[in-house]
């Protein structure tokens, strides 16, 4: 497996997908929360400590007065002391007059642009190589005679607020980490829990006896119940396929054993004779039987070949008229000798379909043979144009409505008459499936209830909608390997209506 292939999304395990889709957003969320907590803690610490600057500068401003023709201030030590918290910040203060001239203080401090809210403005500045938080209070003297403006500027170093911000952030960090850990734990647990039915299903499938095709019985959530149903449907189909195959093998063995037993008995009888004339008669009979058996074996072989889903013979454009003409011409004499009137009806124009030549020929031969075997005296091969259709009509006894599905099964034993192998219609059905041909059986002469006859139609799909038609019959093709179900006729009827309508009318096939 190549690297890109391994990372392709469709190969990613469900668990990993869940993890990626849950944990990635969670990580992003946590990162955002941390970032937000960081800024929030800075802001909270600044707010708390700016209150100190506020209080200190107000307390200083209260002491500012006009004395000796100048701004005067009796600096309260408590104002400076309140600026130094547990972190022992360095403290600076200065008083400036209306002209921005230094009046008193322990350091020259810069001014700040006036803020929109309140008298105080705050800012972090660098003073003398030291980062300090500066608060500037704009005020004016309150007296009867003078109302000079002045500015009180106080500053403190940042140790205290940084310590507070870090403490606040640390507590948020702990909270966020706890939440994140819990969230991850919940995600892991819930993913495991949510995927647990999948594991159960896998285990149930793995623990099954490989030979059993019994349906899966275990409680599953809705999403997986659908999968289970699909699986059970597949299993059911496989069960039917296997049943059909077993029956087919059984039937085939039986069909082969009967002539072989006959051969054996005839040979034994002949061996007891001494007259070469008897031997000759026996050999003649045996030869007939062997020929018939060989034909049976050939048909079995072709049925098996047709039902092999691996082998899809190439199709080629094929003229239905030419095919019908050829088949009728080749076998006319043979059927004529048996008293069967074989005819062909063709449209004026050529009808061309895409099909495998030899398969269609075989289907046609089988249909004619089948009709002849079941007592028809008149068999007509007809080709229609739109839609392209090949049909074989006879005037035989027909097949009752209820039997029509069953006769498509190999070795169907309706009535033990006739001389066919019991495979003719099964082969036709297989060929029809392989070609996506719509196979339908109906009465040829509905106005003759005693001998309604049988009309087998092979309806070709138009070439123009070939592809959609192929897709549409996909479900029917699932069963292509199985000539005919018998266990669940109801389901079969469904698929028949979706794909091919197979009806047959016959009182049975020859043995």
């Amino acid at each position, binding site marked *: 497996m190549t690297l890109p292939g391994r990372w392709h999304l469709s190969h990613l395990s469900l668990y990993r997908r869940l993890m990626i889709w849950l944990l990635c957003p969670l990580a992003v969320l946590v990162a955002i929360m941390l970032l937000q907590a960081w800024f929030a803690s800075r802001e909270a610490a600044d707010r708390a400590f700016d209150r100190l600057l506020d209080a200190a500068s107000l307390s200083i401003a209260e002491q500012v007065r006009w004395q*000796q023709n*100048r701004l*005067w*201030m*009796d*600096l*309260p*030590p*408590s*104002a*400076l*002391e309140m*600026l*130094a918290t547990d972190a*022992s910040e*360095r*403290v*600076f*203060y200065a008083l400036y007059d209306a002209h921005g001239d*230094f*009046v*008193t*203080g*322990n*350091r*020259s401090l810069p001014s700040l642009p006036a803020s929109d809210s309140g008298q105080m403005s705050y800012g972090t500045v660098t003073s*003398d*190589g*030291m980062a300090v938080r500066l608060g500037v209070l704009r005020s004016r003297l309150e007296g009867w005679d003078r109302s000079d403006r002045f500015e009180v500027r106080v500053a403190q170093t940042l140790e205290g607020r940084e310590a507070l911000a870090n403490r606040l952030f640390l507590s948020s960090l702990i909270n966020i980490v706890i939440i994140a850990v819990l969230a991850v734990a919940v995600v892991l647990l819930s993913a495991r829990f949510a995927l647990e039915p999948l594991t159960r299903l896998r285990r149930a499938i793995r623990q099954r006896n490989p030979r059993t095709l019994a349906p899966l019985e275990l409680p599953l959530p809705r999403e997986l119940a659908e999968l289970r149903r699909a699986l059970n449907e597949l299993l059911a189909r496989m069960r039917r396929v296997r049943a059909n195959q077993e029956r087919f093998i059984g039937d085939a063995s039986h069909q082969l054993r009967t002539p072989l037993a006959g051969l054996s008995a005839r040979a034994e009888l002949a061996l007891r004779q001494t007259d070469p004339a008897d031997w000759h008669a026996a050999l003649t009979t045996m030869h007939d039987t062997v020929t018939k058996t060989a034909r049976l074996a050939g048909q079995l072989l072709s049925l098996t070949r047709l039902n092999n889903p691996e082998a899809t013979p190439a199709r080629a454009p094929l003229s239905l008229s030419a095919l019908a003409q050829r088949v009728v011409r080749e076998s006319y004499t043979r059927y004529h000798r048996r008293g069967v009137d074989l005819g062909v009806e063709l449209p004026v124009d050529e009808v061309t379909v895409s099909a495998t030549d030899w398969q269609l020929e075989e289907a046609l031969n089988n249909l004619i043979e089948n009709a002849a075997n079941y007592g028809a005296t008149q068999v007509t091969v007809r080709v229609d144009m739109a839609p392209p259709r090949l049909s074989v009509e006879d005037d035989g006894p027909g097949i009752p409505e209820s039997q029509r599905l069953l006769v498509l099964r190999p070795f169907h034993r309706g009535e033990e008459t006739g001389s066919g192998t019991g495979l003719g219609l099964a082969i036709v059905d297989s060929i029809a499936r392989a070609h996506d041909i719509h196979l339908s059986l109906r009465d040829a002469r509905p106005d003759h209830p005693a001998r309604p006859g049988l009309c087998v139609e092979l309806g070709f799909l138009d070439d123009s909608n070939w592809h959609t038609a192929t897709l549409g019959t996909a479900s029917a093709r699932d069963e292509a390997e199985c000539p005919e179900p018998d266990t669940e006729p109801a389901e079969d009827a469904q698929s028949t209506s979706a794909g091919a309508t197979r009806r047959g009318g016959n009182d049975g096939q020859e043995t």
Partner: protein
Amino acid sequence: MSMSRLFAIAGAGHVVRRWVVISLLTFAMPAGAATLHYAATTGAPQPLTLYGVLDPPQVEPLLDAFHRQHPDVALTYYNLDSMTLHQRVLAERESPRADVVLSPAMPWQYQLANEGLSSPVTSATTANWPRWARWRHELFGFTFEPIVMVYRRDLASRLAPPKSHAELLSLLEAHGHELDGRVVTYDPRRSGAGYTYAIEDARISARYWDLVEALGRSHAALETTTSAMLKGLSDGRYWIGYNLIGSYAQAYVETHPELAMVVPRDYALVLQRLALVSRNAPHPATARRFLDFLLSRSTQHLLAKQTTLGAVHPGIEGPGTAASLRERLGDAIRPVEIGPGLLATLDTLKRQTLLEQWQQAFDSDSPLPADDTDVVPSSTAITPRFPAVSAPSSEEPSAP
């Protein structure tokens, strides 16, 4: 009025700095200064430079002990007066010569540290130093010196000697005439130390101003140094001295039996010498070793036993320690807080306000003639060039 004019000139901070430069030219080496040098006796010499305001008799036991413990250090100690020390440190702020600066002028020392001219020292010793005696890890109070009263023993025969500020006030109020000119204290206008104590006194009690008025009424003498006061007391010129530095007074009283020292019972200010390691100190590692030494248990023990400076170390008890003083006086002990409140002390307008108030209180009874002669030159004549911003003067101990 003349006073305040002068202060107004010295007011702004930038003026102060310019003056520092001038001071270096004019006060290159004050008279009281002395330099001690200890040569390294072993190994490669590790130089170390100290600036201090401690005269040889007090500092020698300390430096001897350091030399014994660290013989590889070549130590140079410059004894300066506190103002010179402050100006020198400011002048050398970019490339300091001193590794460690020791000074009792707490506001000035605090101002240096607040400006960031100190560097943090973190070691096991400094980390365990009591919080009230340090600021960050940059400023360490290593002595514990109460501000005391000293009186002559023969006073006791006539009057009850004061044991507290309140008693001193009532004594002055009751016997103002007898004590006229017999009480001595700091002149806060001319002495930085006196100013510092005045401001702290005023913060503690509003009755301080009554005391100043009473002092003014009895025409108290004003001196600028503790040693001058002690000398006057010993000579018999003064009977009672108020606000003397305990460490000097104690040493002096021990050799002068006619004097007695009282730590006021109602409250006693306590001065701490503050040590800091210079930012960009030329020998930072050795400076840290010195600081560790200074704050170590053994050195503090030595301070308690062999000097009158007092020990801060919480693990040491007995006479001459903060613990014993606290035990004796309890809550009355008021160490000057090492905090930004000290900066207010240095504010020029604050200083002017306080001194004017002090002057008013002191002169309330008998207006000084100086108030009438509102002429600037005359005031410069009585005040030396620097007192407007001066730090406390160097305190000389008594002669041994």
